[in-house]
Each structure stands twice: as structure tokens, then as C-alpha cells.
């Protein structure tokens, strides 16, 4: 039987495999615009048209494409490159961030527009929540997508030197909307081998024996790697500038497995099918060990020890008690403080496991390429990572390689959210590549993202707050237990961060903390947007709201009375952070935004509650948060800005782009410093070849750290070029004015192209580029406040968000359109974690929600529009007055919602998520108690 399919007017005759889906058939033929988000029909990133009908190609049996015409995102634009109107609209509205879901939204929107007015039109285009049921975006919060569909234009083209503060479009936009942006796996590597991982079925077991013989006999299998092939080195999968921040408790492949899903062996084969088959044929003999999944139980004497076999060199605080890290501290005396209080409130708050759910899964491709100096080959690892430089450092340490023999590069990254501040695949892929001297790829499945990657840390926070009748705080005490899972990656650091700014933002004479990061036999937790602050902020902001209510005070007034002011010290019971300053203060403005929203609700100007059905309860609530604008202990960035022969500029930075928009900001900063337009600035990034070092795209550092390095480099280049122009023309330096494309030297125009040539002719090539470096210290703080007005149906537990208002103190906003997108995306992601997202584990610690249909992500229908207000502040430390704004919008959301729910119902909800069944049950129980 001969097979034939037309894809974007190109013919393919290769027979598909029997069980192959259309998605992989298309990608194997180079149609990389077709993305794998879930591979299960839930996310829509793989949407294509088959004979004009939109389908999810991951579910479409490839054999059924026989004789049909398939259109992918690459086929939307006309052959001469003229964009489809829908592509144009997504560009104008910037209806994407990382762009991994964009092809799916484009293909779906095109189909909706085609349906409009046809016999089958059922009004979907006017009902986007329903129309986009099958499309998930993790970054934007959907407002930008709605604007794109509706044809709203947000982008602008500022004139030369005026880019900063304007809505400049992301430079990768045209590639994103045409499906030509290259993400991690969108490359063809000749001779590529594929890896699949065998994972542990047991929560805790010693591997007694592994029989690989049958696996090795599978045709196409090249190698089976077990713990016997792995280096004995212990390390952490977490990536930090200083590796000592994390306990060294992990091996590439270990002889002991500590959670269901931990990798046991790796099979490398010609195809994923053969590698999968190889995994099924490996026979492992386990000696099962006692396990513990509850962190409190894990700390009790006699509990099974996860890392009892490790010595002090692993830097585990108390391995015998499963404590990965702990901190205890007190300022003043909390007992005295509570004794002085008129109200003492004590409660325990709990947050659940949450998955980052970046649409691009973890994975990497390792291959060999000739070294530039011609002395043999080096290993290049193309990875979906937020930290190329730190990953190179870790790989070199692990395998004893010099840094010039390893290059780590990230393509465009399909979302991170902290999940990719981790080395989860590069270590084992490098092991295989070095062993086989062949290119090797490992691409996680969506299920593996859930049971074989990391989650947000689940926290239990016991909090006690004391206050006097006049509303003055007397004492705050917290006992924090963070469940780090089977490994300590980010465990102690998240724990420390969680009790830093959350304590410091409130002024109280007495503060005490006992915090523990605890090992359990479950999937490891790791870095996640907010880095622990969100969990503790849920407890603190809920408690402050409750104390105010008990004092009969307006919670906002209570906060205003107790938060630190601009000149005040930031005291946390874990000690001072010497390099942390309030270099700009916008908290008062943030709270004013909430105050205004409350007033509008009271005056009736806010009409959002007018249509609430009878019997529903209405309430409003606020949450706020402070965050340092960068991680402690140094966060380094190098940047180099160069003039190119054609008179445009090249910016080299190390930080990665995953929809955070830092590339745009770096372009804007450079264009501003060099008096040009952003289209004359190109950015190269996230490649260990392009600059000396960069700590990475985490800790919200893309603008304030890497951006500052870019600013320094661009400023320095401007000075150098001016000197060169003066020498070239003989005109006094101060009379040489840099313009968009040329210098005006007292009336004489010297184009940048001419200047470049002159520089080269003079042998002053070095003068045509400049470096910038920033060490990430000192740091400032940013503030956020979230306000919700909600309606609750006590009969069903349904919560409707009537109005959502967010205030963000981002300092000088570099790109309002993008920054608004960061805030909206953060609020949406936090709403997911507040309302329904929940990585559930069973009694043995096995993840039971390993697919998007079991792990609900916020969909179009779930996310309200959030009104975003920026404060008028300018930071004394950040570049051009800017502060970070990527993690922080997440943090105040959960308590704001819980406070609004409390206001509406009288019930204090202490455990997330607030699903309808739980809300109904709590209200039902309250009604029973009140009725009894």
C-alpha cells in the first residue's frame, strides 16, 4: 500500500508507523511548528488542519492522513511570506509569551474564523471560553490572546533612543507566529539516538540487581545505563551560582531509589520505540525499604531515613531526621509579645504540590561538534534550561571535563517558571553521549513532567500573630515545614527565602521562626515562581486579615499601620541581609490601589456584583507581598554589545528567553543607550559561547541583573564610539552626537557603517565593542498587592471572581505591555494554584495526576481579566530605575482570594486549593454548626 499525504502543499510518501500519531509524523519530516505540549489531546499545541478541519495531531492516527491535505502553522502564511491576518493580529497584540502554545492558538483561531458565517457556525468566535477549551497557555493568562483574536493592537515603534518604557514587540515574534522559532527539540541532528528512562515502581528500595541482557537484544538498542555506569559523584540537580546552597544528595543513577518515578536505568536506541521496548525488558531486582511520605512523620525518631548513608560532605542538616535544612531564629521575645497582645491568633495553613507545567517539557539533545580552535571535538548540549552556564559548570564537574570541551546552549525555551533551574536531563544524556560518542536526545513525556521532574514545595505553616487593640503588632511566630521530597534540590534555599521577606515586610518587635526542609519519599520539589514566598505569604496575609477582623479593624488599615516604611530596616528572625535595600518604595501606592477598589465597590461605582444570583455571597479581600529583586549571594551577568559591519548592533547575553521578555528589554536598553531604534539591535543569548558567564534566568534577574550588564556595556560602547568618531573626524568629542544610524559630528555625518570601517582600518576593532558586568548586588525590593471581589454560591461551592485588581511596584517599567503580561500570567498561574491545581500522590508517594486532564490548569474560561496598575517609582539600584516583576505577582493572589472568601462567607479557608467541593463542604459544615 502506498501512502501519500500533502503537508502545506508539499508531498510526503513515507509510510507512517502503525501506531504513529500525526504529530510525530509531521515533526519527523521537519514540520517543527507542530508542538508537543501534552501528547494527549489536552493542550492543543499540536493543532493542525486535516482537509480544513482542526484536529489535535497528537491523537490523530497518522495512517488516516492517507490522501489528505494537512496544514500546519508553517502553511498559514502565503508562499511569498505574507502573514495570515491571524498571525498579524497575534503579533500586534503580542498574544504570546514563550510562544510554545501559539501555533495551536493560531490554527484554532483560523479555523474559528473560517467557520464564522458558514452553515456550521455555532457562535464559537463570540464565545472564546468555549472555543478555546482545547488550548492551554501557561504564560499569558489569556488576556493577550483575547486581544489578539479581537484585533487589538498593543505594539508600538518608538523613535530612535526612545525605546525604554515603550511597548516594543518581542524580536522573536515573527518566528513564533510562523512556527519557525526553534525550541529545544526543533533541530535535526544526523545519527541521533534516543533515550528512554526506566523509573522506579517503589517509593524506597535498594537495587539488588539489574539484568539488561534482554534489553540489549532489542534491535536498535545501543546501550543500557545503570547505576554501575554512573559516576559515584554526589551533586544536586538544583542550579545555583554557589553549588553549596544545595545538599549534594543525588547521583546520575543511584543504587537506591527514593521515590516512585526515580530513574533506575536509561536505554539508548535508534528510535524512541526501541528505547521504550528496551525499558520494558530490563529486569530489576529490588529490596524494598520502609518509606515515609509525611514530612512531620519523617522527622520523628525511628522514621525511615532517606539519606542516612551520607556524610557531612553532602551538607544535609540532619540526615538522621530527614531534615535537609533548617533555620531557627528569634528577634526580641515572642512570648512577651503575645502576653502584651489583646488578640492572639493561631492557625495552621497548608499549600499543595503544584507543577510548573511549562508547555515545553524538560529535555536536551547532546551532540559533538569540532572545537573552534581545531583541536578535536567538544560536546554541545542543547537544553530546555534557564541556566546554561551553571549546567555547563555542573556537567564539567560531574564528568571531569574542561569548560572549553562543553558548550551548553538553550534555544527558545517553552516556559520555565523555575522548573528549568534544574539539571534533570543533561547529566544522564551527557553520560550516554560520552559513552557512545554519538548524539543523544532525551525528551520528557508530559507524564514524566509530573512524576519525574519537580514540583512547588508543599508547605505547612503554623502561624501565631499577636496584636494590641489599637492594631499594633506585638509578635509573629511561624513554624514552617516544607516538604522537599526525595531530594534536597532547592529545599533549604526555598525554605530560607520563604521566611525572609514575608517576615520583614511587617514591623513587629518580636519575631520567631522554626523552619524545616524535610525529605520524604515523594517526587522532589524544586524552584518554583516565588521560591517559597508564595506559600508563607498565604499564611501571613491570611493571618493578618483575620487578626484585623478580630480587632474590628479594616484589614487594609491594619496593614498600613504595620508594614515597614521606606526608611525602615527589614528584620527577619533569620538575620539581616546586608546587601538588601529599599531602593524604591511603592507599597503605599500598591495598597492605595486596593483601597480605591474597595471604595469603588462600596460606592457602587464597581457594578460587578450587580448581576450576582440570589443566594450568592459577595466579599472582597486583599493580599500583599514583598520580594527581593534578586537572589542573595551574587547573581552574575556578562554582556557584550558590538557594532557590526552593517552599522547595526549585536548584544550578547547569557540569560535565556522563555517568554519572560528579557530579550525585548535588552534590545530596548541597548537602543536607548545608543540612541537608535530597536530594530537595529539583535540579541544573541543563552549560549555558553557568547559571553563569559551568566548565572541564569531565575530569581527574576533578566531585567535587573542581565539588563544592568547590558546597560553598562551599551553605555560604554556609546562612549567608545564617540571617541572613535571624534578621532575619525577631528571634531571635538562633545560635538559628536550619536543618532540612530550615524554620528553627527558638528554637521558632518558619519554613518555607523563608515565608523565601523574606520575603526577597523585604524586597527581599533576592540573599540567597536564593549563589555558590561553586573554582580547582582546590592539588591532592592519590589512590592505587589492583589485585590479580589468574589461571589460564592454556598449551595454548590462555586466561586466567581467579580473583579481582580493588581498593583505592581516594578520601579520604572521598561515595557508596559510585556510587564503587564508578566503580571497577568503570574496572577493566572497563582489562581490555578489557589483554585484547583493539585499534584496528588497516593499513599506510596506515587503521583496520580500525571496528565493535564487530571491536573487542571487555568484555561481561558477560568481566568478573569485582571486590572494591572503600576506604581510611580524609580529604583536607585535597578537599571534605569527598573525592578524585577516575574515571580512576585504570584505571591499575594492566594491570600487575597482566601480573604475575599472569608469576607463573603465568614469561613477562614486554611488549605489550598479552594475547589468547589471543598468550599461547599466547609460552608455546609459551618451551616450545620450554626444550625445546631
Amino acid at each position: 500500500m502506498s501512502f501519500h499525504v500533502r503537508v502545506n502543499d508539499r508531498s510526503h510518501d513515507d509510510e507512517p508507523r502503525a501506531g504513529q500519531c500525526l504529530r510525530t509524523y509531521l515533526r519527523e519530516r521537519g514540520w517543527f511548528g507542530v508542538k508537543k505540549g501534552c501528547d494527549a489531546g489536552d493542550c492543543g499545541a499540536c493543532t493542525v488542519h486535516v482537509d480544513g478541519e482542526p484536529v489535535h495531531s497528537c491523537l490523530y492516527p497518522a495512517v488516516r492522513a492517507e490522501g489528505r491535505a494537512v496544514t500546519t502553522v508553517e502553511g498559514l502564511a502565503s508562499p511569498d511570506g505574507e502573514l495570515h491576518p491571524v498571525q498579524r493580529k497575534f503579533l500586534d497584540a503580542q498574544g504570546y509569551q514563550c510562544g510554545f502554545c501559539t501555533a495551536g492558538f493560531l490554527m484554532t483561531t483560523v479555523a474559528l474564523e473560517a467557520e464564522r458565517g458558514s452553515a456550521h457556525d455555532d457562535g464559537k468566535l463570540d464565545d472564546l471560553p468555549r472555543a478555546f477549551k482545547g488550548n492551554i497557555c501557561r504564560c499569558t493568562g489569556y488576556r493577550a490572546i483575547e486581544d489578539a483574536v479581537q484585533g487589538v493592537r498593543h505594539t508600538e515603534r518608538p523613535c530612535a533612543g526612545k525605546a525604554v518604557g515603550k511597548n516594543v514587540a518581542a524580536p522573536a515574534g515573527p518566528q513564533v507566529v510562523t512556527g519557525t522559532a526553534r525550541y529545544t527539540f526543533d533541530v535535526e541532528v544526523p545519527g541521533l539516538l534516543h533515550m528512554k528512562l526506566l523509573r522506579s515502581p517503589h517509593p524506597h528500595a535498594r537495587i539488588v540487581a539489574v539484568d539488561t541482557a534482554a534489553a540489549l537484544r532489542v534491535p536498535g538498542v545501543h546501550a543500557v545505563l545503570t547505576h554501575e555506569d554512573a559516576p559515584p559523584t554526589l551533586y544536586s540537580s538544583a542550579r545555583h551560582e554557589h553549588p553549596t546552597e544545595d545538599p549534594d544528595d543525588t547521583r546520575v543513577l543511584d543504587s537506591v531509589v527514593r521515590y516512585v518515578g526515580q530513574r533506575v536505568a536509561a536505554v539508548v536506541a535508534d528510535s524512541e520505540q526501541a528505547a521504550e521496548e528496551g525499558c520494558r525488558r530490563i529486569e530489576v531486582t529490588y529490596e524494598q525499604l520502609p518509606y515515609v511520605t509525611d514530612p512531620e512523620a519523617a522527622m520523628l525518631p525511628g522514621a525511615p531515613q532517606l539519606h542516612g548513608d551520607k556524610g557531612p560532605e553532602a551538607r544535609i542538616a540532619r540526615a538522621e531526621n530527614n531534615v535537609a535544612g533548617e533555620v531557627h531564629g528569634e528577634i526580641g521575645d515572642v512570648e512577651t509579645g503575645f502576653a502584651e497582645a489583646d488578640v492572639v491568633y493561631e492557625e495552621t495553613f497548608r499549600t499543595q504540590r503544584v507543577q510548573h507545567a511549562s508547555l515545553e517539557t524538560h529535555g536536551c539533545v547532546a551532540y559533538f561538534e569540532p572545537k573552534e580552535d581545531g583541536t578535536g571535538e567538544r560536546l554541545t548540549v542543547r537544553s530546555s534550561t534557564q541556566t546554561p552556564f551553571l549546567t555547563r559548570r555542573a556537567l564539567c564537574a560531574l564528568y571531569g571535563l574542561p569548560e572549553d570541551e562543553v558548550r551548553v546552549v538553550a534555544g527558545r525555551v517553552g516556559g520555565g517558571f523555575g522548573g528549568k533551574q534544574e539539571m534533570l536531563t543533561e547529566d544522564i544524556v551527557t553520560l550516554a553521549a560520552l559513552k557512545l560518542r554519538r548524539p543523544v536526545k532525551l525528551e520528557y513525556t508530559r507524564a514524566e513532567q509530573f512524576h519525574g521532574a519537580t514540583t512547588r514545595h508543599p508547605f505547612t505553616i503554623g502561624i501565631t500573630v499577636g496584636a494590641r487593640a489599637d492594631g499594633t503588632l506585638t509578635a509573629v511566630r511561624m513554624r514552617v515545614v516544607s516538604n522537599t521530597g526525595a531530594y534536597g534540590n532547592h529545599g533549604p534555599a526555598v525554605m530560607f527565602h520563604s521566611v525572609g521577606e514575608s517576615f520583614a515586610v511587617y514591623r513587629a518587635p518580636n519575631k520567631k521562626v522554626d523552619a524545616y526542609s524535610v525529605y520524604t519519599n515523594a517526587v522532589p520539589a524544586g524552584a518554583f515562581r516565588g521560591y517559597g514566598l508564595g506559600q508563607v505569604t498565604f499564611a501571613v496575609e491570611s493571618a493578618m486579615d483575620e487578626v484585623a477582623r478580630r480587632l474590628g479593624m479594616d484589614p487594609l488599615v491594619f496593614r498600613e499601620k504595620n508594614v515597614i516604611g521606606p526608611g525602615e530596616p527589614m528584620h527577619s528572625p533569620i538575620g539581616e541581609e546586608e546587601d538588601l535595600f529599599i531602593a524604591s518604595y511603592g507599597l503605599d501606592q500598591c495598597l492605595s490601589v486596593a483601597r480605591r477598589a474597595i471604595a469603588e465597590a462600596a460606592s457602587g461605582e464597581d457594578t460587578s456584583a450587580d448581576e450576582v444570583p440570589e443566594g450568592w455571597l459577595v466579599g472582597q479581600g486583599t493580599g500583599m507581598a514583598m520580594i527581593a529583586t534578586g537572589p542573595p549571594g551574587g547573581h552574575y551577568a556578562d554582556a557584550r554589545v558590538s557594532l557590526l559591519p552593517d552599522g547595526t548592533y549585536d548584544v550578547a547575553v547569557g540569560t535565556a528567553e522563555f517568554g519572560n521578555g528579557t530579550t525585548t528589554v535588552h534590545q530596548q536598553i541597548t537602543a536607548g543607550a545608543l540612541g537608535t531604534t530597536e530594530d537595529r539591535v539583535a540579541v544573541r543569548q543563552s549560549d555558553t559561547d557568547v559571553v563569559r558567564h551568566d548565572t541564569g534566568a531565575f530569581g527574576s534577574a533578566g531585567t535587573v541583573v542581565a539588563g544592568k550588564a547590558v546597560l553598562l556595556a551599551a553605555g560604554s560602547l556609546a562612549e567608545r564610539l564617540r571617541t572613535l568618531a571624534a578621532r575619525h573626524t577631528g571634531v571635538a568629542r562633545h560635538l559628536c552626537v550619536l543618532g540612530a544610524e550615524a554620528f553627527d559630528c558638528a554637521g558632518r555625518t558619519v554613518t555607523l557603517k563608515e565608523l565601523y570601517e574606520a575603526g577597523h582600518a585604524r586597527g581599533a576593532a576592540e573599540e567597536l565593542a564593549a563589555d558590561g558586568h553586573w554582580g547582582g548586588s546590592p539588591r532592592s525590593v519590589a512590592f505587589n498587592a492583589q485585590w479580589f471581589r468574589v461571589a460564592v454560591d454556598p449551595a454548590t461551592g462555586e466561586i466567581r471572581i467579580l473583579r481582580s485588581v493588581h498593583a505592581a511596584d516594578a520601579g520604572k517599567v521598561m515595557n508596559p505591555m510585556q510587564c503587564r503580561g508578566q503580571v497577568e500570567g503570574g496572577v493566572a498561574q497563582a489562581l490555578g494554584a489557589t483554585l484547583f491545581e493539585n499534584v496528588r500522590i497516593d499513599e506510596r508517594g506515587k503521583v496520580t495526576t500525571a496528565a493535564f486532564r487530571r491536573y487542571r490548569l487555568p484555561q481561558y474560561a477560568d481566568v478573569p481579566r485582571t486590572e494591572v496598575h503600576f506604581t510611580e517609582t524609580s529604583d536607585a539600584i535597578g537599571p534605569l530605575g527598573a525592578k524585577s516583576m516575574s515571580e512576585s505577582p504570584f505571591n499575594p493572589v492566594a491570600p487575597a482570594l482566601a480573604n475575599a472568601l472569608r469576607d463573603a462567607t465568614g469561613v477562614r479557608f486554611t488549605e489550598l486549593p479552594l475547589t468547589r467541593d471543598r468550599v461547599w463542604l466547609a460552608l455546609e459544615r459551618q451551616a450545620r454548626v450554626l444550625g445546631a
Partner: protein
Amino acid sequence: MDLNTVTDVRDGRRHEPWRPGDAWLGGGTYLFSEPQPRLRRLVDLSRMGWEPLTRAEDGSLEIAATCTITQLSRYGRTMGVEAAPLFEQCCRAFLASFKIWNMATVGGNLCNGLPAGPMISLTAALDGVCLLRAQDGSVRRAKVVDFVTGAGRKDLAEGELLRSVTLPARALGSRTAFRQASLYGLGRSGALVIGTLDPVDGSLAVTISAATVRPFRLWFPLPPDRDELRRAVEAAVREEDWFDDIHGLPEWRRHMGLRLAEEVRRELTHSLEKSAR
């Protein structure tokens, strides 16, 4: 996703011996959504040529197992029967989007037997009867409410094929009421209740699904009052029949099942009282 253990796709029109590791391939939207390591061959039903929707002379509607959700939705929008709105309501009760509707089949949804399967809700409520064909060619019929026996469990033998489901004319002529609850906006059903009021004898059927492990169709010769309905539901649905999974606590599902049943009863009997006046 790729089903890498599958080595062959057979045309369903050929009558070949059924083997262990075989599976019927309908729309593929379930089979291709999860790893299926036990499968070796897919028997493709896409070329069977079955008419998706056939209205018989007696007014009944036969829906082929291979009828897609899109076909059903479009048919329902133009079908001139009293129960027609229920078709679109049940289609929209899918967690899946209209793009999945282009592939997913009515038969596939029934044979998955999941509590939240909206085609189960639809056909159970409209008194549907499954036509089943065994490997030896023998044919039998089973009511939808008897075909689905539990969460993911159904009365289907190895290799047996669901050919179609037929909705009787009398059910199609019923006035219907529809209620759905989910933990999420436009999410998977946690409770789905349908009422049908027979135009001929005024009897009321209330079908509870999604909240329960299987559909429960309660028939009342005369519409019950609020308490009678509640007692009937509580008598029919045992505690363990209220479904417990991640899409809703059983207490909530029970509450919602009872609540929606009452809403449905009220909607249908209210209009009855009005028309009687």
C-alpha cells in the same frame, strides 16, 4: 501520542480472527491519549461506511458507533424533535474541545464507560439501546444504562463491537431538562443530571450520571414531588455508587446529584403544571 507497541492497523471491514492485543480504533481520541503497552493491533473502524445518523420510519434515531461528536452536534441542531436541545447540551458537556469533536466518536465515549462520558448521559437519558456484535457474528441488544456497569466498566466481551445506539422515538419526543456541575469552569462533569418528560403518559425519567460510577435512570409513572424524588435517588444510588475521584469529593457529588435532580424535576413539572392550567 505514538503507540509504539502497535505493529499493525487492520481494516475493520475484513472479518479477521480477534487476537489478544487487538483493539477497535474509533476516533482514536482515547487510545492515542494514553500509553497502551498491551496493544499490538488496531482494528480501524473508519472505513466501515456506517451512516452516522439514521432516522427510522418509526421515528427512532440510530447513531452509528463511528458517528463523530461534530456530526451529532450538527444533526442535533437541525433535528426537529422535542429532545433536540439535549444533543448540543451533552456535546458541550465534553471536557474536550470542538477539535476533539471532529475525531471522537459516540461509540468510543460509550465504550470508555467513564462516569463523565456525556454520550453515556445523553443516550442513557433518552432510553438508548446498544446494538452489539460479537466476534462470532451474533448480535445482541443492551440498554445503555445496563451496558455501562461501573467507572470504566461495561458489558462488552473481548472483541465484541458496539455497532450503534438507538434512541426510541418516544424518548426523542420528550421534553428535557439538563444540568451539569464541574469543579472548574467548562470542566469535566462532576455531576450531570437529565430529566425527560414523556409527552404521551406524562411519566418522568431522571438520569443521574458523572456523580455516580454509572448512569442511574429513575423512572416515575407520575412526576414525584421533591421528597419522593430524593427518597428514590437515595434508595437507588448506594453510598459507594457516588463516584470518588479527583474531579469531586463524593459528598459534593451526592449533594450536586440530588440538587440537580431536584432542579430538573422542578423545571419539567413546573412547565407541566403551567400547561395543565
